[in-house]
């Protein structure tokens, strides 16, 4: 079994806003994560990432505060899964509820150091 990192990216502004939408979204995420765990393929449920953050760059170390609101694809969270192959991991990622809001999932195999 290999391990894969799923990185969820989306536009923060496209996220659900009404309480009903938010609740339905939470339910979808719970079902999806629960479904992965039910296949015994969840390695670490992971976390959501807060909207505030900085990006540090070379030189003076330009630190920008929360640039993500401007960017269409902010990293919103991550999850670790177990899978035999990249293909299977990709298949699992296809069920991610982030697609309901125009987001995307990056699937990367973890190279253990």
């Amino acid at each position, binding site marked *: 079994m290999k391990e894969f990192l799923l990185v969820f990216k989306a536009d923060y502004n496209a996220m659900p806003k009404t309480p009903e939408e938010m609740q339905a979204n939470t339910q979808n995420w719970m079902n999806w994560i629960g479904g992965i*765990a039910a296949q015994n393929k*969840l390695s670490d449920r992971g976390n959501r990432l807060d909207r505030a953050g900085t990006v540090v760059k070379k030189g003076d170390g330009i630190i920008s505060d929360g640039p993500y609101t401007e960017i269409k694809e902010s990293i919103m969270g991550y999850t670790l899964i177990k899978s035999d192959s990249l293909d299977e991991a990709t298949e699992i990622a296809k069920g991610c509820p982030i697609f309901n809001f125009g987001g995307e999932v990056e699937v990367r195999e973890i190279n253990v150091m």
Partner: protein
Amino acid sequence: MGPQELTPHLFRTEYSKIVAVLCRTFHFRHIEIAADIASETFLKASEYWAQKGVPENPAAWLYTVARNKAKDYLKHTAIFETEIRKGLMHDESWTELDFDFNHQTISDSQLAMIFAACNPVNSSEAQLCLTLQILCGFSLVEISNALLAKQETIKKRLQRARENLRNENFQIKSLSEDEIKTRFEVVLRALYLLFNEGYFSKSNSLLIRKDLCLEAIRLALVLTGNELTDTPEANALLALMCFQSSRLEARTDESGAAVLFDEQDRSLWDQALIQKGNHYLIQASKGTELSKYHLEAAIAYWHTTTADPKKWQHILNLYNELIVVEYSPVTALNRVFAYAKVYGNDNGIREAEKLNLKESGYFHGLLGYLYTGLDSNKALEHYRKAILLTKSEAERKVLEKQVFRLIPIPEKDSRHDGDSFTL
């Protein structure tokens, strides 16, 4: 009531107390000595009571005899000289040693004994056997009946387990807070297994099943009755046991065959136990801890309710949490059942097919259930596979009943209003 009927019942309740108190008081390294003394005490009781009648307070009689036998034993062995006296230096006259079978001593001793029996040097199977023997007073025959294993296997398992304890320098003593903390999880798991062994027992005897469940509850009560171990987790486990036990009578018919949840006579559910479950669930909710026992207790709680339209949504979410905390095939299948209740059988089938459990009878039983009303041929196919795969006679009977229902003309309303799959 003659001594013949009285003694077995007393044996169950008193044997383990006597062993625990003896072990703790005299620092017996060898549980066998305490067990021998307890057995001799009962032997004497059965002879004496048969002739003279049962004393007014049988338990007190047993304690007195056990205490005297223990003292006799100590007088005649070197253990007393070399080990016990050291511990009793503060006490000039050891015969006046505070060696009472009072409520507190019994409770403390049993707690210490639970932690001793659940020593992680032993496998969980071995812990279960030790617990049944030392703490529940089960005989070898009873253990092998309860666990459906050969007596010889159990005997060997117990011998090995005791050897391991001895090598660990086994002592029944007051536990430090640290020891309790580090071993608590193992203890809870052992009691959880003990309960499940009863609740989902392969044994057909309702008597055996009830016995195991009640013993598990009794031991869990020892935990919640002691300040150090009265944790939210222990209360959650106890709540779970109460909710589940409330259905013990309704789960089997007179012949011992299993009755599915939706076919159970709800008037047979034990309301008093449900109330107790509610009480302990509230106790468990103090603090912020959310263990797997909390989740399972909450699921069991929802099963005792009928009115809430969101019931299955709640149950599904709890299963979503539980499966993340700890994977097990049974949880995965129960989650699919709840999923189908919320999103319909066709979506449930899609969710089930992602699971890699094709070798499990339960898996096919579930698919048989979900296909019923959608595709009778597929339903039959899965039920038949389930029958081939199951090892339990009781389960096979239930499955055959389902097949029988499917073979004639399809039912009017084929979407079952079932309430649970394995509960």
